[in-house]
């Protein structure tokens, strides 16, 4: 079979899966209500963060840590959406919709299928992140002057980071194939660990040395550092200050490549085990 045929199948899988993902994410209500929900949800999330910050930190919004936390949280929306969005497809298709076995028996590329399903979540997360940032600038007074934003860095880091998150989602998807009943907890656990260790709200500097070391090994840490440097002009982590922006992006790119190889290899291994044990149509939750 030619590479062209395989390429065609992969593209088809991505395109149709993206359509399907969008239908599933948006089709649960009428378009107007969905639009309202899409705006209200991130704004409500931002307000919760603001109140938590005011109560816990007892500081004003002018504190230099607030933009760090706010921007970190805004981009963290992608982590939940992409990472969980891709891995959850496995359990949703298998146990809720009962369709995973039909997908596996069809001539589609399961990798691009999963990425396609995650694409809808990514689009929704992009809207939510944008609204959150606009709310931060317009209402909470966070300084992100468009003229000072490094748009090239923002775009490059965003793409690399999304790729890293997608491959982490694939990694989790592989684990889901084997451990359906525990997937929700695994996904939540990973997302929670990333929230703590990647400098989403706490700069790496405040973490104990062993956790700091773990954080420095995570691509999400460099992703957020690069994004903060692009929009705020400063990454906010003393532990990474010695690294140039080019180095931060390079580490992000390299760790994404490592993650890509590891996730594809792990997913293939998980698929083989799932085939061997008959797990592709397992029912454990719904």
């Amino acid at each position, binding site marked *: 079979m030619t590479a062209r045929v395989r390429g065609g199948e992969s593209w088809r899988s991505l*395109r*149709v899966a993206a359509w399907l993902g969008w*239908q*599933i994410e948006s089709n649960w209500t009428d378009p107007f209500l969905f639009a309202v929900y899409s705006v209200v949800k991130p704004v409500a999330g931002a307000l919760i963060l603001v109140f938590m910050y005011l109560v816990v930190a007892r500081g004003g919004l002018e504190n230099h840590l607030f933009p760090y936390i706010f921007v970190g949280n805004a981009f963290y929306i992608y982590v939940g959406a992409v990472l969980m969005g891709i891995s959850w497809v496995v359990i949703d298709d298998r146990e809720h*919709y009962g369709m995973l*076995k039909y*997908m596996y028996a069809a*001539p589609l590329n399961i990798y691009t299928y999963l990425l396609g399903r995650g694409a809808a979540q990514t689009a929704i997360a992009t809207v939510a992140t944008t609204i959150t940032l606009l709310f931060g600038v317009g209402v909470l007074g966070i300084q992100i002057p468009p003229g000072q934003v490094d748009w090239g860095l923002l775009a490059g880091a965003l793409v690399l980071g999304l790729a890293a998150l997608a491959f982490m989602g694939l990694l989790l998807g592989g684990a889901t194939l084997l451990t359906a009943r525990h997937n929700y907890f695994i996904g939540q656990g990973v997302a929670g660990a990333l929230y703590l260790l990647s400098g989403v709200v706490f700069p790496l500097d405040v973490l104990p040395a062993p956790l700091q070391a773990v954080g420095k090994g995570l691509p999400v840490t460099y992703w957020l550092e690069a994004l903060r440097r692009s929009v705020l002009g400063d990454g906010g982590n003393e532990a990474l200050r010695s690294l140039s922006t080019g180095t931060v992006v390079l580490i992000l790119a390299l760790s994404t490549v490592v993650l890509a190889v590891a996730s594809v290899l792990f997913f293939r291994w998980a698929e083989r085990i799932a085939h061997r044990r008959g797990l592709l149509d397992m029912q454990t939750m719904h």
Partner: protein
Amino acid sequence: MGTREFSIETQDLSRVFRVKRREARGQKREIVALDRASLAVERGELFGVLGPNGAGKTTLIKILATLLSPTTGTARVAGVDVVENPWEVRRHIGMVSGGESSGYGLLTVEENLWMFSQFYGISSGEAKKRIKELLEVVGLADRAKTKIYHLSTGMRQKMNFARGFLTEPEVLFLDEPTIGLDVQTARTLRSYIREWIDQHPDRTLLLTTHCMYEADDLCDRVAIIDQGRVLACDTPAALKRSLQGEAVFRLKVDGDRDLGPLFDGTGGVERFTHAARDGHTEIDLILADENALVPVLTAIQGTGARLLSLEKREPTLEDVFIRLVGRSLTQANGGGDEPPR
């Protein structure tokens, strides 16, 4: 097997599941779902796999559809090894499992089917045309725009049936396609299955069922399977002919009686089954010849039982199954009734 072209070919195909023992933690026991099954299905055939629940029919389909690895043995579909090249196999197959309500609830019937057709690279216009035709066949034309979470399980099953034929696969696997459907719908789907294979002589259809009527009525050839083993494989007529030298009777006697020990000791009784129904006992007998009936009736009379009816029957696939396995399909299915015709 010479140089004949087979759409499906299995050689000593086995599948063993290792499951945890409840009574002994950490230990596993082995369940043989498929035991050295060898089959060869020719292109253009409507091939039936008949057997009770748990016989290994679904396991066979899962292996052929590349969803499950065999433990040992080989399987080829459309000339391609299912283990060595599953991606290539998937370009040639379609699959429908009956009795389940899979599908994306937030999509309409039409959207579910259209979406699936797109994975196979069918043009949107052609897909919509086929969807319209198939929804007419399965009686869901008026539900095309209905989101499927509004549909009953039976309606979803009909939609999934349509999905199987939508892509016009070279080899189609139907796993108990009419299970749980009402009589009229089951009849309609059966006639469509037969019509489809007749109109597409280059296609092959493998159908599993535990309904002997379905196998008898539809299939060009039938493999009888029980406890993972293929016990016989031939045309329904030839399978039934294998009992032609024997005599098949159905008797009814009053009361709920266990006549097993009685027949065990009666000469000429090849096989028998008996089941209590509505206050009487129904007995199916396969006798070496008609002469064996007299000692049977004498023995029954000796127990004080009253004979209510006696009928000599043409052999059915059920009788073939009894002859091979020693129990009826109904008994093997756990006492459930034969699915509606």
